[in-house]
């Protein structure tokens, strides 16, 4: 289906395209179809396209001379986009240790929501989460699909330092802190994997549109993965699913 999109000049050298103001996978899919349709044309004047839940920002190298002409170009690309070729979906299995030592806020969530800790863990590790986009910090995945029973408001006063790898819940969202950073989300576990490796050509293993699943691991398994990562012999388990 074709969505009703709005086009507007954002800065001298960028155009913002917006979908209806909702978060859902149909919109994300269309956002990515459109983004890739533009990228596939390798238009020289376009240097970068960023996407979020329901918008793309098309960034040009130079000031856009004639906005209307550019809108027309973009609109014709939208109409001609290939919306049937379902791109293959990559699923990444991310190990998470939900031990007390890491899950600083598990108890608080459990008491407040009257859900046992083991129930929280099983509800958190069940869904296939969609990666909507990466933002906030290098390698910070915006994931959709958190079980409603686990929605939990952000902390009133953020923590000064959150440990790298912390798996957390903030409102209706869940995510992993790619590096030590301040933050206001509730921490329920820790993943030993690196979400951002600057030396890699693709610094984050996941991209917008990919899928993530959390796999509960014990403290011993956690330590073993840390060792494997140190030795450079660890790879994140992943699978390609044809859509």
């Amino acid at each position, binding site marked *: 289906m074709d969505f009703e999109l709005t086009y*507007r000049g954002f800065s001298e050298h960028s155009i913002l395209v917006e979908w209806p103001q909702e978060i859902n996978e149909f919109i994300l899919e269309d956002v990515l179809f459109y983004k890739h349709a533009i990228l596939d044309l390798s238009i020289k004047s376009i240097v970068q396209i960023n996407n979020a839940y329901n918008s793309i920002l098309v960034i040009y190298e130079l000031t856009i001379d004639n906005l209307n002409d550019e809108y027309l170009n973009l609109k014709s690309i939208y109409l001609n986009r290939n919306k049937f070729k379902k791109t293959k979906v990559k699923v990444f299995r991310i190990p998470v240790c939900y031990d007390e030592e890491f899950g600083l806020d598990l108890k608080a969530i459990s008491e407040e929501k009257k859900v046992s800790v083991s129930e929280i863990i099983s509800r958190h590790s069940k869904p296939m989460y969609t990666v909507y986009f990466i933002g906030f910090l290098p390698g910070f995945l915006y994931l959709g699909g958190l079980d409603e029973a686990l929605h939990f408001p952000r902390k009133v006063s953020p923590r000064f330092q959150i440990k790298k790898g912390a798996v957390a819940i903030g409102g209706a969202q869940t995510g992993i802190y790619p590096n030590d950073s301040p933050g206001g989300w509730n921490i329920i576990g820790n993943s030993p994997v690196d979400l951002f490796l600057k030396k890699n050509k693709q610094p984050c293993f996941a991209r*917008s549109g990919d899928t993530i699943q959390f796999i509960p691991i014990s403290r011993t398994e956690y330590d073993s993965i840390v060792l494997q990562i140190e030795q450079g012999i660890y790879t994140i388990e992943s699978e390609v699913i044809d859509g």
Partner: protein
Amino acid sequence: MVEVIKTGLFDTIQDLGRLGFQEFGVPMSGVMDRYCATLANSILGNSSDAAVLETVVMGPHLKFGSETLICVSGAEMNVTLNGKALKTNAVYQVNTGDTLKFGKLSKGCRSYLGVLGGFQTEVHMGSRSMYKGITTNYKLSKGDVLPIVDHLDNKLVSKRHESALFSAVKRDDNHFEAHELEVFKGPEFEKLAKWQQEQLLSAVFTLSKDSNRMAYQCDQTLDNALEGVITSLVLPGTVQLTPSGKLIVLMRDCQITGGYPRVLQLTNTAINRISQKNSGSAIAFKCVK
């Protein structure tokens, strides 16, 4: 090479920034004031993406370990070479052992030191711009040694040095003086009530102390009833209105996405100009469209 003898407030190596890695959450970074940094490079005959040293309010002391040509542009910081005062926007030859000191700030906020060929520090993801987690260091420290092009082509040096073509550049003084910043309406501007729109475009704001390469904040608050938006895309120069009514002007190290209403977008020139404003400076937004 150039050695850092004493650091300034926040010295970094910057070029025109990183493109192509925003999809992984990597900011663009790059010089805050492209106008002045480009001026230093063009006076030296460098390409505009050559890396320069950016310094803010209080600059470093540097010792040169090799011969080169330099040019300082941007804020006036009473720079001296071996104790002798230097002018901004002019080319000087430096020799091995020379000491360059940034002194007291008298105009603007950010100063740029260009060297012939640009600083040759590490490149990550297509850029030398320093940023936490991307480059080894996110700012310069005492004792750092910055590589530059050491073996100068003497012919090129004398040519560049004498060339009136490169050195006769006139700086636009309005760049530092103008307090009006040109803006476009942001995606959520129309969601503001008429009187709020008028207030935003007529009030004088002062810049708060909490201003850095990531964002500038204004001291004043606006009455704000706007709700947050679904996390969407932002750029350097995007002006966000927070729930508490504070205005945040995003700068070169800003994130890729944000959840506050985007009420204005600074023009490229306005981003360069606000980069030269200090805390307490008065600014006003003028809509160009």
